[in-house]
């Protein structure tokens, strides 16, 4: 048993050998019933070789960290312009790419970009709740769904257009944010997570089973795209710029709110709720605001989603979606606004670009999550927080 728990490698080759052997054997055995002898055998060989090599590399003190440090030294030796100029250049580059995308990108790329935009808004909304305020919401997809379905219903059943629906839908979503928050407020971290998960699932189940209203699993189709300057925004490239505006507005607003008395109160609540209360912050009210504010943006994303797909069904609003959005927030770095943008873009683009290994996408996501938590919990950019 101790061989599995000890991390010190023995000095002798025999030790290294047996260590790698046992671990490889263990995993192959676990794998064996599921895929058969041949596959298990292959796994064994692969694992054993990999572990053995790693062992040898460790022994020879060839470290990854060392290589990176060397690389950094070479990099800085090249006379690159200083950091401020670099940032401006970077921003300029990214802006150009983003603004001119529809000109050179093919439809598929633009489509993904539009989807990224929607997810950026979603992730920013969740970032306010989880990242700033520290409230773990595992059912965020519920607000997304309510936003999407409310527009879908208003449009298909009552013929209400996009711009008129928007305030109505957003009111409904924000209200549901409040409603969920009220019971959730008294709960500690884990329990809050579960209640929100439950809420998300209940919303999905209702959407799936209330056939008379929501057409159940068949979904609602024939939703109108938004109407602007006298025409429907049907063309993809137009929709791209449409979404871009929303994304910019969302990020802009959220940034301003974060950098204010309200944002500071939220972060204080995340850091220490009792201390926050003891310096005069009405934690109950602010947690409510946080939930409602986050729900608002999920609603925006939902309406945009419905308008783009022109079709909604409960399938798009599963627990996995909530998890995905949470991953975007974590990947980018909890609390960091640019980080979350990056996280959203990566998690939308990556699986699409790796279409060939599509099958293993979820495996990668699962193991990626575990490794991210162990090796870089602060995410790629890392914001104010864990």
């Amino acid at each position: 048993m101790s061989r599995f728990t000890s991390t010190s490698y023995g000095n002798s080759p025999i030790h290294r050998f047996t260590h790698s052997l046992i671990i490889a054997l263990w995993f192959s055995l676990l794998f064996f019933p599921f895929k058969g002898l041949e596959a298990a055998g292959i796994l064994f060989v692969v694992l054993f070789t990999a572990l053995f090599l790693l062992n040898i590399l460790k022994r020879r003190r060839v470290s990854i960290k060392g290589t990176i440090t060397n690389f950094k030294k070479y990099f800085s030796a090249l006379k690159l312009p200083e950091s401020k100029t670099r940032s401006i250049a970077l921003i300029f580059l990214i802006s150009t790419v983003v603004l001119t995308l529809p000109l050179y990108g093919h439809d598929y790329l633009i489509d993904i970009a539009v989807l990224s935009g929607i997810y950026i808004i979603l992730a920013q909304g969740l970032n306010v709740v989880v990242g700033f305020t520290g409230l773990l919401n595992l059912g965020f997809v519920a607000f997304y769904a309510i936003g999407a379905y409310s527009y879908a219903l208003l449009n298909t059943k009552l013929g209400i257009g996009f711009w008129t629906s928007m305030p109505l839908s957003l009111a409904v979503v924000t209200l549901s944010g409040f409603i969920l928050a009220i019971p959730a407020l008294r709960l500690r971290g884990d329990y809050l997570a579960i209640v929100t998960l439950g809420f998300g699932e209940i919303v999905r189940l209702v959407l799936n089973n209330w056939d008379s209203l929501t057409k159940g699993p068949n979904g609602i189709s024939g939703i109108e795209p938004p109407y602007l300057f006298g025409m429907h925004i049907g063309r993809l490239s137009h929709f791209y710029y449409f979404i871009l505006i929303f994304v910019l507005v969302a990020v802009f607003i959220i940034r301003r709110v974060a950098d204010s008395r309200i944002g500071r109160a939220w972060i204080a609540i995340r850091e220490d709720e009792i201390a926050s209360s003891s310096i005069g912050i009405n934690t109950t009210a602010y947690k409510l605001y946080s939930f409602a504010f986050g729900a608002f943006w999920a609603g925006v994303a939902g309406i945009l989603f419905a308008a783009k797909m022109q079709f909604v069904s409960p399938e798009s609003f599963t627990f996995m979606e909530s998890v995905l959005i949470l991953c975007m927030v974590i990947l980018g770095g909890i609390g960091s606004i640019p980080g979350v943008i990056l996280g959203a873009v990566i998690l939308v683009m990556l699986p699409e670009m790796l279409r060939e290994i599509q099958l293993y996408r979820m495996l990668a996501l699962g193991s990626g999550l575990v490794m991210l938590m162990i090796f870089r919990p602060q995410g790629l950019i890392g914001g104010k927080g864990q």
Partner: protein
Amino acid sequence: MFTQQLINGLTLGGVYALIALGYTMVYGILELINFAHGEIYMLGAYLGIIFLAFFTAIGLTSYSLPLALILTFILSVVFCSSYGFTIEKIAYKPLRNAPRLSPLISAIGVSIFLQNYVMLTQGASDKIFPHLFEKTSIELMGTSVTYTQIFIIAVSTVLMFFLNLFITKTRTGKAMRAVAQDKMMSSLVGINIDTVISVTFIIGSGLAAVAGLMVAIYYGLVNYSIGYIAGIKAFTAAVLGGIGSIPGAMFGGILLGLVESLSAGYISSEYKDAYAFVILIIILLIKPSGLFGKTQEEKV
């Protein structure tokens, strides 16, 4: 109708209780909601089918069904316990000192991984459990009870009884309770925390494996996604009884099974899955510490 649903409820409840025990024990020791626990249950179900198929293939089943079944049970339990043990070492142990969010996310990651692992290796369609017992049933209190149901209720009761014995009478059991109460003190009196945690995961996973196997027998088919729903429901049961409390998990499981069956029978079976969520939310709102738990106030 009532007795029928009652029996159904007890059967379901037994299964939920077995899975709930794993949740509650791990939470009691690590304060972690082991999201991946439901997947262990699913693994148990799949492994049961796989091993039984193997034994059938080598002719053991036709030779002696009880023997094949027992071996299947043993192998499923051993493998699932090993999975549980391994998962703890890889995905939770490194995060023992991390903030609460990290192991939770890690657990979600493991859950996703396992679901897709099984989906990729075993296929996305349902896997059938060979029809073993004839659907014979006996008449009991005016309703028919199948042998499978009796089997499930019996096995769960026996296992719960032995677990209780283990926790209260054996040294390891007492060590587990000690660690659940105060980790630091336990290590100071010489209890090996790592070992206790591993044992907890092993036992919890073993129980889940049995639950999975029995469900496979009961319903005749399994699917890689059964872990998620069963997991949520079992977690609800654990919370209902008071998370961290072992008798609570047993009680909560049975109660949940009964509520679900009776509601499905009398109210609506379409929203069957929703009842667990609704109960969960209600409990967490009214008394988060559950029926047997203690309200914990934060010390200032």
